[in-house]
């Protein structure tokens, strides 16, 4: 925590402009990623966590667009001087952001089945990535690819490199995916639900692999998941999102042991636990995620919140404010509305 964060997301707002109006997929999210650390972003589906990842890489597709906020990446510029670049202000198709995509920030995501094009061999697709970012020849790139495949635990990589994605099992494919993401030694790896589509044993292997690699390369990882178990296993810091906003953030221990926000508390209650009483019903969060065009006024969680304070929560939007040096939450249980302004 001593050095400054490698990536700072500050008040990020990504909206989708549809015929029915703007959908605020990410609505003022702020967090930091530190070098060598793992940040977990957690939330129900539809909370804006994947869009946040896409926003960082600037590959949000129309009709989506970043409307506000900054994504500051600390990096060495062309002269080798350390500096900062605001990704949100870059031309999304420009050369600079493309050099960062795959080069400094890599993405692994949830669909190992379809994340590769079935028309090219895996080798082709990895070699391409290497050659995009580094001036190396084909043969050199190929041998690097074989090395990478070996590193992620693919048996007989010399042969596998010429196979098509559909010839591999799901677990192997996700390993290849990780190999591809690592091919240019990124500083940050974003893993969007990396294990969702896999069976439990494979999940564990993949998570082990990620941890192992992080230990070796000292890169930062942003892991996006709805699975609190994965968070507990992987993350150093946790960010809880709800309807596009960060409702709570903090070190993993504090979030798990002292969740502050009622939503975080509810999420944790819904994890099946070996300590839970057998045959008891798993607690769920009341209600469902509201329609994006009917965003609740005030605190977006108040209709589902057991501790909602009538007259306050539906009228005022809470701010994400620090509760301790490391933990933040956005709830009127912990601070008063600063001024009475209509949300």
């Amino acid at each position, binding site marked *: 925590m001593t050095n400054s964060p490698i990536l700072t997301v500050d008040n990020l707002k990504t909206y989708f402009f549809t015929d029915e109006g703007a959908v605020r997929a990410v609505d003022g999210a702020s967090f930091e990623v530190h070098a060598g650390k793992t940040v977990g972003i957690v939330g129900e589906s539809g909370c804006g966590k994947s869009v946040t990842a896409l926003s960082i890489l600037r590959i949000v597709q129309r009709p989506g667009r970043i409307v506000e906020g900054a994504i500051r990446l600390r990096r060495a510029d062309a002269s080798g001087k350390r500096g900062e670049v605001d990704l949100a202000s870059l031309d999304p198709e420009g050369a600079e952001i493309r050099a960062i995509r795959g080069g400094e920030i890599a993405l692994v995501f949830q669909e190992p089945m379809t994340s590769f*094009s079935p028309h090219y061999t895996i080798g082709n697709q990895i070699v391409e990535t290497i050659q995009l970012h580094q001036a190396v020849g084909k043969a050199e790139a190929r041998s690097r690819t074989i090395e990478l495949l070996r590193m992620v635990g693919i048996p007989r990589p010399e042969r596998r490199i010429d196979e098509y994605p559909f010839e591999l099992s799901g677990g192997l494919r996700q390993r290849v995916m990780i190999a591809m993401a690592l091919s240019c030694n990124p500083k940050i790896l974003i893993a969007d639900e990396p294990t969702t589509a896999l069976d439990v044993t494979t999940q564990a292997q993949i998570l082990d692999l990620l941890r192992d690699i992080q230990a070796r390369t000292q890169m930062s990882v942003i892991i996006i998941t709805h699975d609190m178990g994965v968070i507990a296993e992987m993350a150093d810091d946790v960010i809880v999102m709800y309807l596009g906003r960060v409702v709570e953030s903090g070190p993993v221990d504090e979030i798990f042991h002292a969740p502050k926000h009622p939503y975080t508390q509810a999420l944790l209650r819904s994890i099946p636990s070996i300590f839970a009483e057998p045959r008891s019903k798993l607690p769920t969060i009341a209600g469902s995620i509201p329609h994006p065009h009917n965003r609740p006024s005030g605190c977006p969680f108040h209709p589902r919140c057991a501790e909602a304070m009538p007259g306050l929560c539906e009228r005022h939007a809470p701010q994400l404010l620090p509760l301790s040096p490391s933990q933040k939450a956005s709830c009127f249980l912990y601070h008063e509305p600063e001024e009475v302004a209509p949300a």
Partner: protein
Amino acid sequence: MLTYTIHRFLLALVTIWAISVLSFAIIQLPPGDYVTAYIAQLASSGVDVTPEFAENLRQQYGLDSPIWVQYMKWMQQIARGNFGRSLEWQVPVMTIIGDRLWLTMTVSVSAVVFTWALALPIGIYSAVRQYSIADYIFTFIGFIGLAVPSFLLALILMYVGFRYFGANIGGLFSPEYLVADWSLAKVWDLIKHLPLPAIILGTAGTAQLIRIMRANLLDELRKPYVITARAKGMSEFRLILKYPVRAALNPFVSTLGYLFPFIISGSIIVALVLSLPTIGPLLLKALVAQDMFLAGTIVLFLGIMTVLGTFISDILLMWIDPRIRFERRE
């Protein structure tokens, strides 16, 4: 894969045989025969025709025997590599077809090239920029070609060409090159005559291809591998061409087999209006004249080409799509 190929080949033979029977039957469908048609034509060009001639001619051409006998004779000839003699042109069928075949190919290929050159970029653009103004405009232009009757378009363009540009009227060669031996100048002359038929023939198919390309590409663009590729830092242009466009090409290849026969029968009208020395008008005239061996051979050829085309496009499909290749291997 070998058994698969052999299996396909045997089925193709059966299909071709069925086509030969059907084509012969269809040509015999109208009442009367070549002699009736011939006499009608003579009468209309002012030649005195007496009923005796009809009898003479029927015996001369062997048209007085039953249809199945004529079919068997034809088949026997084909088995010896002789497709019969055209009753109207009075020379072996292959002599006539041979000359026109490659000109037909040339016209068809240039029409296909034009169609693809127009349809692929528009289709890709329309999919990538779905619902944009340009999407609407390009799609609209593409569809105009489908909607405007090609025979009318051909006639109007031909007249405009004559009236305002002094262009040659119809055909694929300038008069001075018609009998000339092949030379670079003649080839250049042919190339100069190709755009008009290619554009007219091509516009009709453009809309269909734009539609297929757009729909396929829209499907492909939503697939996760596109995001993967994007996250790699590829430029959007390269990315789209390398991944989704490649995948969207599959249906194009699978229709390749039907393309050639389709262009021939679809181009009869335009070829007539523009007076192109291709197979289409020949087929139409042979049918009108009930010149059965000529018409039968052309129909049979088209059938064989379709069967072969399908076969080739299947193999091409296996070549470009590894998934199909693996399925068939098993």
